[in-house]
């Protein structure tokens, strides 16, 4: 009976990371929203102001980390939701690959944008 499960991949790591990223995101997401909608109004955003913020290394790193964690959290969340709906076999592998690529692309593009904004590229 138990043999059926011998080839499993423990899902524990993903689960734990999902919680850890969530805990981190609570803080940064709140900060992000607050900064860009309440302190500075979104409507008043200009490239210059953005650049001023991005030039600060601490802010830059926080934003990149924000991006990385959010991308992981979001993509992993979507993947889990699909597995919960009974995704299996090849289709599951394909979805996994597509989501990973999308996530990586998102992070790459985002980091590139941030570097440009900071004026370092």
């Amino acid at each position, binding site marked *: 009976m138990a043999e059926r499960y011998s080839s499993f991949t423990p*899902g524990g790591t993903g689960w734990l990371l999902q919680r850890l990223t969530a805990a981190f995101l609570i803080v940064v997401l709140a900060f992000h929203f607050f900064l860009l909608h309440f302190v500075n109004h979104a409507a008043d955003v200009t490239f210059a102001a953005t650049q001023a913020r991005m030039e600060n290394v601490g802010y830059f790193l926080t934003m990149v980390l924000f991006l990385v964690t959010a991308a992981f959290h979001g993509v992993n969340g979507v993947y*889990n939701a699909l597995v919960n709906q*009974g995704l299996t076999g090849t289709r599951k592998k394909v979805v996994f690959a597509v989501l990973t690529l999308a996530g990586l692309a998102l992070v790459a593009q985002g980091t590139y944008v941030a570097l440009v904004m900071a004026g370092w590229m």
Partner: protein
Amino acid sequence: MSTQRQKQPDEPETQEAPTDQEMKAEASPQQKRLQRKREQQSAREASADEGEPEEETVHLKVFRYDPEVADKQEPRFDDFHVPFEKGMTVLDAVMYARDHFDSSLTFRHSCRQAVCGSDAFFVNGKQRLGCKTQISDLSQPIRVEPLPHQEVVKDLVVDMDHFYEQMHAVEPYFQSEDLPQGELEEQRQSRENREKIKMSSRCIWCGACMSSCNIAAGDNQYLGPAAINKAYKFAMDDREEEEIKEHRLRILEQEHGVWRCQTQFSCTEVCPKDIPLTEHIQELKREAVKKNLKFW
């Protein structure tokens, strides 16, 4: 059904002239009461037959399906009006409907006291044990359906094989081969530890929890709350050694094990034995994480 009640046989002769203590009265209050009860019942049955329910009745809408019988191949709901009695349960009501109106009405039941786990139905939109659900707690008409997310065999009977498979998949048995010898020593277990596993050990395999869980409905391989709870009972039992506990966590940790649970809580809500299923699943997740962190 015949409206004629069999005439009550006269009281045994010997009881009419009792000499001894136990049988003093001509007809004891007990006998009189029984007599009254039967008369009432026959009156009630008679009125139920004539289709003019004078007394309070229960309106049941029961799901019917039989793959073999022409007019039942297309699922339908049948209406039954059953005379209400104080303390009546959903199981009593469907049994009454079966015994008096349609003997082909099919459902599993046995103990009538919430220990055999045969009669979990979908009653008014919730998984419940028929024998443990008072009619008076429900709004009418009462819809009685087979458990969702399981294949229907006939009427209220669903296929439980998959549920049993999942229960078996967690290796639900003591692993150690240690048996008593010579001195007849039992293994020791603290009261606290026994208390810890107490709730988990109450499961009667009714399948209500599994049927209520959306994740189990979507992911067929998900072990499901009942099986995880079964594993919890063993994993938390101090009588088993540490290595065995780790082995148990490995079974639970697989992709379709504890991680699939999305803390929907429906299992906990429907469990007729009040087992805190979600809590147990969550505790196992934490145990599994802890175990993994040890190796890092």
